[in-house]
Every structure is written in structure tokens, then in C-alpha cells.
């Protein structure tokens, strides 16, 4: 039995959305998604799934705020503390099991509401080890980037190239509020923010809400002539962030394992040849290259392919044709769905200024961000 994405909607996609509360953003995204799918949330949707985390919200037991704005009152709502793509995985299981025919997934983030973000990040570290106070949790990305350089032979210039590619690409995407017309030299000459990365290579924050409507094969065919099929999805966590020493530095095994299972479900043997583009993690520039390797997209070395323009929008295998997180920004647990949204619009031929020609199948890969070692991978097809 296949599973499909039959509707998608969004709200925000700006660094700050002061005029709307997070529930109003959720409502706006949900209304658009249900309209897009042609369903009545109160009548047709069997289960609602929401990805969120209390400390991002500043509201304890925020799960209780989840049902109202998505039409889930008095119905089963499942909240998951994880990236939005993990919620899509939950919906996938419910539909595959036959328990639900129509599931609504939402994730939202309002980083502009959080005034002490650094201290909130600190709360994510093991309480017994917080006393070190290393400035900010992005140091974890710096450590991974340096380890990745040593392992792969990639240089700072390659990371900067990713930032230029994605930030410039985003100029064509109306949702990419962090897009910029930057030159390689400007990225390289900027002072490092977290060595070896400059501020241009670290994604900004965005307020966003995204809703996705998922359906069983039969239901999908009733609703749309051309649904987007979710051919596979999986996720995994490597080590708890309390034990960063145990992470496999310069690698992301959680993405590798998630991809392996998602590809198996989708029947992919050679993901780069069997798919047309990818939306992959790039909230730190080097992550794009690291992820491409972990996703099995670059046995030759991702930085070498990047250098040759292989991953450009006009190249052999476009990577982050939306502009990626470097252009779109990150939005806590909504980040993965921001990327799923771009992939769905792309496959539908509704990507506007960033539309690729003839894209039939895509890989979406997201990471939960520092300080986490959780990744999710999805395969979508027309």
C-alpha cells in the first residue's frame, strides 16, 4: 500500500512574524494545506501529528496547544519532540498500518519569540556537564567541520562555495528570506564565526509553520489526479547530546542509516541516478557535503563534484535548488518540513522561479540541528 502527500500549506517564512501568534501561524498553514488537498479537517482527517519542543515554545506541555489550530480538537493528536520529517514518518506508519486513511502533519517554529536562545540550547546539554559553557552550541558544528575536512580532503573554499551556491539560488525563491547575492571572496574574507565557518555559512532563523496532508493510496487517488508519493522514510539517532565525545566526528551515521532504510523502502539501488534532485541539510555549509556523502550521493567525494558544478541547479544533480536552509533559514522542528515543502512544490511543477525541468523523484534529508545527532530521510516521487 502506497502513501501520498495530497496537500501542503505554509505560513511565515520571514525572520520575524510579530503580527501572528504561533497558533495563528499554524492555523494559516493548516487552512492552506486542507484547501490544497480538498479535505475538511473536521470531517475527513483521522489523526493529527505535530512536531514541537516545549523549550522552543516557552510553554510547558505545549502538546495541549497542538490540536486546536489544526482542526484536531476531540480527535487523536500525536505530538512528537523531533524534526517535522520525523512526524511525516509517524503519519507514514499510521497509514501503512491501515489504521488511518488521512493524516495531517504540522510543524512550526517561532525563533523570533525566544530571547535567550543560547541559554535554551545550554539546557539541551547534559546537566552535569553544562559548567564548561563553551559560548554556544554551534561549536559542535565547528568540531564536525574540521573533522570532516581532515577526513574528506575538502577545504574551506568548498564550504564557502556551498554558501554562495545556496544563498544566490535563494534569490529566485520568494520564501528564502536569507538569500543573498554574495561572492566567494566575500565569504572567504569574512572573519570566522566558528572556525572554519563564517557567518555566511551558518543559516539564519525563520518563523515558519508548515502543514502536510497525507493519504492512503486509495484516498490519494480520490483526491488528486497526481499526488506526490512518499516512497520511503526513516530516521535514527546516533548518540545523546549529553555524550558528544561518542559522536563519530566528521560523519553523520544517523543520516547514513536513515537513508539506507528509506532507499530500501523506495527500492533505490543508486540514489543519485534514480532520483533527480535533493533537498538536504545545509544549515552549516559543510553539512551539505557531509550529508551528500552519507546519503550515498558522492562516492567520488562531494567537494570534488561540487567544484565541477555537478550540484548546481543547472548541473547533473541539483542539490538544494530551493536555496536550502542557508537561504530559507531554519525554524526549530519545522526545518525538515520547510525542505519537504520545497521538494513537493518542485515535483508538482509549482516551484516558480526555482523550478527544475522534468523532476520526477527527490530525496529530502534533514538533521535536527545542534546539539542533536538525529536525522531523517525521505524519498518522494511523482
Amino acid at each position, binding site marked *: 500500500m502506497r502513501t501520498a502527500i495530497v496537500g501542503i500549506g505554509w505560513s511565515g517564512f520571514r525572520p520575524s512574524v510579530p503580527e501572528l501568534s504561533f*497558533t*495563528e501561524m499554524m*492555523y494559516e498553514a493548516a487552512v492552506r494545506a486542507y484547501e490544497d488537498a480538498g479535505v475538511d479537517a473536521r470531517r475527513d482527517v483521522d489523526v493529527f501529528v505535530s512536531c514541537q519542543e516545549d523549550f522552543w515554545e516557552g510553554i510547558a506541555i505545549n502538546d495541549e496547544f497542538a490540536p*486546536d*489550530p489544526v482542526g484536531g480538537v476531540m480527535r487523536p493528536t500525536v505530538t512528537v519532540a523531533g524534526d517535522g520529517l520525523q512526524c511525516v514518518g509517524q503519519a507514514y506508519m499510521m497509514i501503512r498500518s491501515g489504521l488511518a486513511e488521512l493524516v495531517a502533519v504540522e510543524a512550526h517554529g517561532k525563533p523570533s519569540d*525566544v530571547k*535567550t536562545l543560547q541559554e535554551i540550547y545550554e539546557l539541551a546539554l547534559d546537566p552535569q556537564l553544562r559548567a564548561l559553557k563553551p559560548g554556544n552550541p554551534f561549536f559542535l558544528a565547528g568540531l564536525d567541520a574540521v573533522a570532516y575536512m581532515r577526513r574528506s580532503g575538502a577545504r574551506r573554499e568548498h564550504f564557502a562555495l556551498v554558501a554562495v551556491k545556496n544563498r544566490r539560488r535563494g534569490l529566485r525563491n520568494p520564501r528564502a528570506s536569507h538569500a543573498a547575492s554574495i561572492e566567494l571572496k566575500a565569504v572567504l574574507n569574512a572573519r570566522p564565526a566558528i572556525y572554519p565557518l563564517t557567518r555566511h555559512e551558518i543559516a539564519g532563523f525563520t518563523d515558519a509553520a508548515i502543514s502536510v496532508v497525507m493519504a492512503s493510496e486509495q484516498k490519494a487517488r480520490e483526491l488528486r489526479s497526481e499526488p506526490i508519493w512518499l516512497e520511503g522514510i526513516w530516521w535514527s539517532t546516533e548518540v545523546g547530546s549529553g555524550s558528544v565525545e561518542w559522536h563519530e566526528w566528521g560523519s553523520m551515521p544517523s543520516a547514513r542509516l536513515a537513508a539506507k532504510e528509506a532507499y530500501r523502502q523506495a527500492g533505490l539501488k543508486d540514489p543519485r541516478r534514480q532520483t533527480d534532485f535533493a533537498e538536504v541539510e545545509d544549515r552549516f555549509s559543510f553539512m551539505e557535503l557531509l550529508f551528500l556523502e552519507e546519503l550515498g550521493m558522492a562516492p567520488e567525494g562531494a567537494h570534488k563534484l561540487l567544484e565541477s558544478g555537478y550540484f548546481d541547479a543547472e548541473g547533473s544533480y541539483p542539490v538544494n535548488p530551493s536555496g536550502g536552509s542557508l537561504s530559507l533559514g531554519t525554524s526549530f522542528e519545522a526545518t525538515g518540513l520547510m525542505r519537504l515543502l520545497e521538494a513537493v512544490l518542485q515535483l508538482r511543477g509549482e516551484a516558480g522561479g526555482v523550478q527544475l525541468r522534468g523532476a520526477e523523484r527527490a530525496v529530502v534529508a534533514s538533521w535536527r540541528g545542534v546539539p542533536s545527532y538525529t536525522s531523517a530521510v525521505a524519498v518522494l516521487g511523482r
Partner: protein
Amino acid sequence: MEIPGKYVREEELRKMKGVIEYVPKAKYSYSAGQALSVFLRGLKEGKILGKRCSSCGRILLPPREFCESCFSPAGEWLELPQTGRVETASVSYISAKRGKLERPEIVAIIRLDAPGYRGDEPEFPGIFHRLCGVSEEDVMSGRVFGARVRARWRPAEQRAGSITDIECFERW
């Protein structure tokens, strides 16, 4: 029988190595949004504002931009009467950790005299607030239930656009 070992108080236990005390520094600036911003502005002006669902007609108080029951956008604003009846009330003597409060808190749900409501609906436009001029005995004896109450406002110059612009609900 005497049990061997050393007896410790909780404070002593908490001071031992292996117990870390940590005060989270968490600060947020919650966007009130379209509906609650108007509600809070109304409080500053001494008004209780609600929204009516354009689909089912129920009055949403506290107001929202959408009716969660119909999942449709809420419609017109309306000013609600500042009087109502005590739907339910309680006295609290303890904190969440079961510590003793310095003075008991008397809190209630007020069913406002909203237009179009009979007064016995299970769901109604209401406000959660403190009661004043009501004794612990009034609550425990049940006398307070159904009592007619009205909003007692802070002086206009002290109002900040907050639910505490209403000091409490008092009997009248």
C-alpha cells in the same frame, strides 16, 4: 530497633556532590497575535472583548482568530457585559510542590452574561480570575456558586493591557 546509618535532611542531601542545581535562563517575547492583541488592548480600555464564530455563532472568550470547533475563521468582535455568575470556585492553600502558601488563593471561572446564552450551556464565554470579597468559608460552604459577580478594574492609569487590569471579580 535502631537502623544503622546516618540520617540526613533533604537540604543536606541536595548539597551533596552529584546533585547539580541549575537555574534556567529562559526568556521569551510571545507574540500575542491578531486576536489576543485586540483583547489585551480592550482590557486597557476597561472592556472585555470577545469574538463570535461566524459559522456556529458561539462567542470565543478569550478570543481567537479561529473557532477550533468549526475550524473556520472567527467573525465579528463584540463587547461583553462585565457581569456574570460564579460557575466554579476553589481555595488553594498549597504550591505545586505541596508547600504552604502564605495566604490562600480564591480562584474561579466566571460565566459572563453573554448575549444569546441561557446560562446553562456546558461551554460558554468565561474568564478565569480571582474572587475578592469572598471568604474561604463562602467557597467551602458552596454559597459562592452561582453568585452574581462583576469585574473590578484597576484605575485606568495603572492598566497595562494585561489580564491583571481586572483586579478580581467581586460580588454585587
